[in-house]
């Protein structure tokens, strides 16, 4: 890593420009799929950070849901529709919640970490389902966003604008996480997974390092949930807070691979394409196809799709 040049930053920049241009050209349904993919990718970046430290959360739908419901409730009860208010609000809510729960979760590892995260997310799920003023299982609709007070008259333009906004958001998030992962603190991921005792004796609090990572991932998942709510124009507990939603995030993480912050964007798109086509080809058995695909990835591509990309680029560099 230290010997070869790191192409992440120029790669992300090119990706950003390409994505925004493509967003204007592709058919609407593709745009819609990619927007959902990129929104999810934000949450997956957070899971990537945790994954590197050996932690897998089966409950990040909690923050997904918090972000989504923050947006939905602000729109419904206070009439706030501007992304400049909604996204920071979702960010704050999920960050604060992640920070608080972090005090408990930072003591847990491995499967226990996964299970306790699951329990917390299921409590939120239970509350949402139970509470009619929060829409119960039906959830409710979310209006189209405005941008810094502006709104595009053409619905499609508004979608393109939102997608571009999301791309910029994803770019910033990916860069920040990239720089974080390069820092001393960020490198305390693999180290923690390998040997916590040594990290403690080197003089850094593992609990604190995990707490920071957890809060970060919560923040990212919150923003992702907010963007998802704005993309789908609706929120509901089953597709955003239930354990299956958490499972989907973990699925996309392993599909993407944790080698680079760009991986979640690619992995998330592949996931949505797979699901769209599985659904079209085999409406009775699309889950089977998705499951088989996941199994194949686990068996034959443990580094996710990023390992393929890394290999291609690695090969090219040698030429």
């Amino acid at each position, binding site marked *: 890593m230290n010997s070869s040049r790191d192409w992440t930053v120029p790669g992300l920049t090119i990706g950003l420009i390409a994505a925004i241009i493509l967003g204007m050209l592709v058919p609407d349904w593709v745009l819609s799929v990619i927007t959902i993919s990129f929104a999810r990718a934000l949450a997956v970046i957070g899971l990537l950070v945790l994954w590197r430290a050996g932690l897998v959360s089966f409950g990040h739908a909690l923050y997904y849901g918090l972000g989504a419901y923050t947006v939905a409730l602000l729109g419904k009860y206070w009439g706030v529709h501007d992304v400049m208010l909604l996204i920071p609000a979702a960010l704050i809510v999920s960050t604060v919640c992640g920070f608080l729960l972090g005090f408990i979760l930072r003591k847990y590892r491995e499967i226990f970490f996964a299970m306790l995260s699951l329990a917390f997310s299921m409590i939120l799920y239970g509350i949402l389902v139970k509470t009619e003023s929060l829409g119960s299982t039906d959830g409710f609709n979310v209006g189209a966003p405005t941008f810094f007070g502006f709104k595009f008259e053409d619905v499609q333009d508004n979608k393109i604008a939102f997608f571009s906004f999301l791309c910029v958001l994803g770019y910033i998030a990916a860069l920040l996480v990239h*720089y974080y992962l390069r*820092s*001393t603190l960020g490198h305390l991921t693999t*180290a923690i997974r*390998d040997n916590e*005792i040594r990290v*403690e*004796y080197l003089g*850094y*609090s593992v609990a604190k390092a995990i707490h920071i990572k957890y809060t970060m991932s919560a923040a990212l998942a919150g923003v992702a949930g907010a963007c998802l709510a704005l993309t789908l124009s609706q929120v509901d507990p089953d597709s955003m807070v239930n354990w299956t939603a958490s499972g989907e995030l973990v699925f996309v993480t392993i599909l993407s691979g944790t080698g680079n912050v760009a991986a979640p964007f690619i992995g998330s798109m592949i996931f949505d394409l797979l699901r769209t086509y599985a659904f079209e080809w085999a409406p009775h058995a699309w889950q089977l196809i998705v499951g088989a695909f996941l199994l194949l990835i686990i068996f034959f591509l443990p580094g996710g799709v990023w390992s393929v990309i890394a290999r291609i680029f690695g090969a090219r560099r040698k030429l």
Partner: protein
Amino acid sequence: MSDQSGPLLETRDLNKTFGAVTAADNINVTVVPGEIVGIIGANGAGKTTFVNMVTGYLKPTSGTVFLRGQNITALAPRQITKLGMSRSFQVPQVFLTQTAFENLLEAAGIADAMNGISALKPLHRKPLLDKVDAILKRYRIDEYRDQETSTLPQGIRKLLDIAMAMVSDPDVLLLDEPTSGISVEEKFSLMDVVMEALQEEDVTVLFIEHDMEIVERYTTRVLAFYEGRIIADAPPEIALNDPEVREFVIGDHKVGQHQAHGDR
């Protein structure tokens, strides 16, 4: 090293029991700067428990640990590291999926962060890289620089483990059996490398050792443990000839100080 005059490390009436087993029984030790202390004792005599308590991994049942006069009994290992006491491990605690270089770089990054430099600075920066390369040379493991540590021979891992403990420039270093699991031929060369490197860095050393020749050769003082107690605390030539030590620690009445020299 703020307080040069007083003792560097001191334990007062340190006790530790695990259920019915007493692992430490009123341990009182005072170490002054510059000493090299060998800790000897049979398996289960309480040596590692002592190191674990002093470095904060285990909390004593009763008693106090002072570092430069400061009570550190209740502190966590990382806080004790920050105060200038570090340790190595019997089983090297390294980051197995990373290279020797990365191991040390992370150690250096953390040490830097401890000194108030932001932990958010990039890890791969010139001063740290240079420092790590210097350490690799000092411990003579630079040829293994880019090898993943899971593939390294035990002796190299031991050196790396000690080097990592030294990255933070501690005043006191505790080594838990630095030569265990190493072949007899390699033991002395390993200790030579370690001791030479440690001397350069002006650090007070306590180390657990089973090989009496090593103890005799490298220490200025010996602590002999038996059933959680210290039965001898003296310079090596005295301690190793103490009848109690010879009976309970060395375990062989015939072992003389000249017996094993042939196998060097």
